[in-house]
């Protein structure tokens, strides 16, 4: 038993030392932050009212969505194959940290939604844990984008608005790719960790491609034509904000 512990101890120490050496030879990380806006102001959930493109007033209470395969792209080298899922909650948007794999970047790319395969992989944890409230129990699949709240224009029970956008297969697949070009190439230097802010504009949800009005559709609750049309509006919500 003592020999086993000794061996374990030795390998842990070696691992720690080699990490220190590795860190000194490599540039720092890139952090990506999503900042949410509506009507040209920072988005405040629950306590604020905003107006959509149809002139309808609404009070959003929840905005959550999945971002998959978030990565930096470079014109100078081939992209890496990446598989990752992050759940962004506008109430508490967490930074995402990426390890640079080259020195010059030109774009940020990601997919709004969850890969089809992961929609069929059964019980998962982390961002894909059904406890996050982003999973349909009655028709298996992830809710890619959830916007909830209230509006006087809604004819629903309690004047609720509920947009649950999803759908992982077939004609109404709701996955949407986004590629954002950086205003100028981002150069990675050792010991500097750049921060990219992605600007998320809720105003674009209502009409960037197809028109969504609360009076006509206060609810989208399953995959289908309506969800797919709403999904078409999502990419335009995202743009590059600050780069520090």
């Amino acid at each position, binding site marked *: 038993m003592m020999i086993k512990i000794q061996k374990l101890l030795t390998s842990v120490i070696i691992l720690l030392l080699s990490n220190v050496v590795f860190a000194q030879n490599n540039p720092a990380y890139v952090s990506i932050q999503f900042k949410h806006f509506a009507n040209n102001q920072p988005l405040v959930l629950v306590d604020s009212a905003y107006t959509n493109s149809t002139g309808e007033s609404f009070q959003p209470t929840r905005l959550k969505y999945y971002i998959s395969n978030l990565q930096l792209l470079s014109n100078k080298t081939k992209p890496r194959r990446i598989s990752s899922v992050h759940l962004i909650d506008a109430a508490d948007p967490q930074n995402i940290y990426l390890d640079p794999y080259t020195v010059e970047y030109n774009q940020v790319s990601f997919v709004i939604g969850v890969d089809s395969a992961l929609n*069929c992989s*059964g*019980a*998962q944890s982390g961002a894909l*844990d*059904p406890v996050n409230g982003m999973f349909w*129990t009655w028709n298996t699949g992830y809710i890619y984008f959830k916007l909830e709240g209230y509006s006087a224009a809604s004819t629903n029970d309690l004047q609720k608005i509920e947009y649950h956008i999803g759908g992982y297969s077939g004609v109404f697949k709701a996955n949407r790719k986004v590629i954002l070009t950086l205003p100028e190439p981002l150069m990675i230097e050792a010991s500097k960790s750049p921060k990219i802010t992605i600007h998320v504009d809720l105003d674009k949800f209502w009409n960037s491609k197809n028109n969504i009005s609360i009076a006509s559709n206060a609810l989208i609750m399953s995959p289908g034509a309506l969800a797919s049309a709403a999904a078409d509006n999502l990419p335009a919500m995202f743009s590059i904000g600050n780069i520090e």
Partner: protein
Amino acid sequence: MAIFLFIIGATKDDGYGAYRPQKISFKIPKGWPKPSTDIFAKNKLTEQGFQLGKKLFYDTRLSIDSTISCASCHQPFAAFSSLDHDVSHGIGNQFTTRNAPALMNLAWMNSFHWDGAINHLEVQPLAPLTAPNEMGQTLEGILQFLREDEEYRKMFKAAYGDPNASSERMLKAMAQFTGSLVSANSKYDQVMNGKDTFSNFEKKGYIHYKTYCGSCHQEPLFTNNSFRNNGYSLNRRNDLGRMGITRSSTDSLKFKVPTLRNVQLSGPYMHDGSIFSVPQVVDFYINKINRAVPGLDSNLRKPIVLNKLQKNELVYFLYTLTDTSFTKSKRFGPDGPLQFKH
């Protein structure tokens, strides 16, 4: 120093017992095809996982008012369907909208529920657990209960090395139990394995079955797990079946072909449980198919011609699919008295 203490900590007992999971294997019955996907590939079958899943399956405390467990509607003595109920009871005197399917041989299925809405066995429980007309709970509520119950803490530690429940662990344990429910030991199976013989009635019934039923209710599973329109008219709940999921009009009134195994015990029949006996089901297929229904399955276009005697022969054959070693199994059955509404 910190690393040394951490290593020491990892070998200390946390009071919930050792973590020594025993691997068990999933046996495919002789002559059966292998399932197209190995449902246990990312969910390694262990005795501890199976027992945890079984305990969860029989536990009424998973419902919001502690009256309903999975077994309340999936009763072992009814081949894990609801005995004598067209639809099932939920909390607060509510009902479900469809007949509870008998649970067996799930490892061979790629989708679940009459409309195929569920694409993976592990996530199926989320539907009844959280449905307001079934068990009415929230996932957070269930996990909180499991994390605070001493017996479950011991069982999660035994199965996963950690006493704290997570949704993934809970759902995977349930799938270890439900996925293990295999029924392959009926009289029919004994006959196919050369250990028994059909009576003359049953032998003739087997021929009728092969002629008229075998294309959808295919041996040895007695289902091909496809979605078919069997000419059953739109019911009073306006249940369009698979179309509700795919939104495709070609899926209107298509429902998943159920297994005929243990059919003697799993009545009533059809997606809404509106046919009460096996002879009446046979009558439906002979006399009552609604031939005006668009999309009637091509296998049913030709009328089924069976006289009264032949109908009885077919029914006798179907009764040979009853497997009491499955329905009375101690391994699959509850460890204590079964709790259910009535």
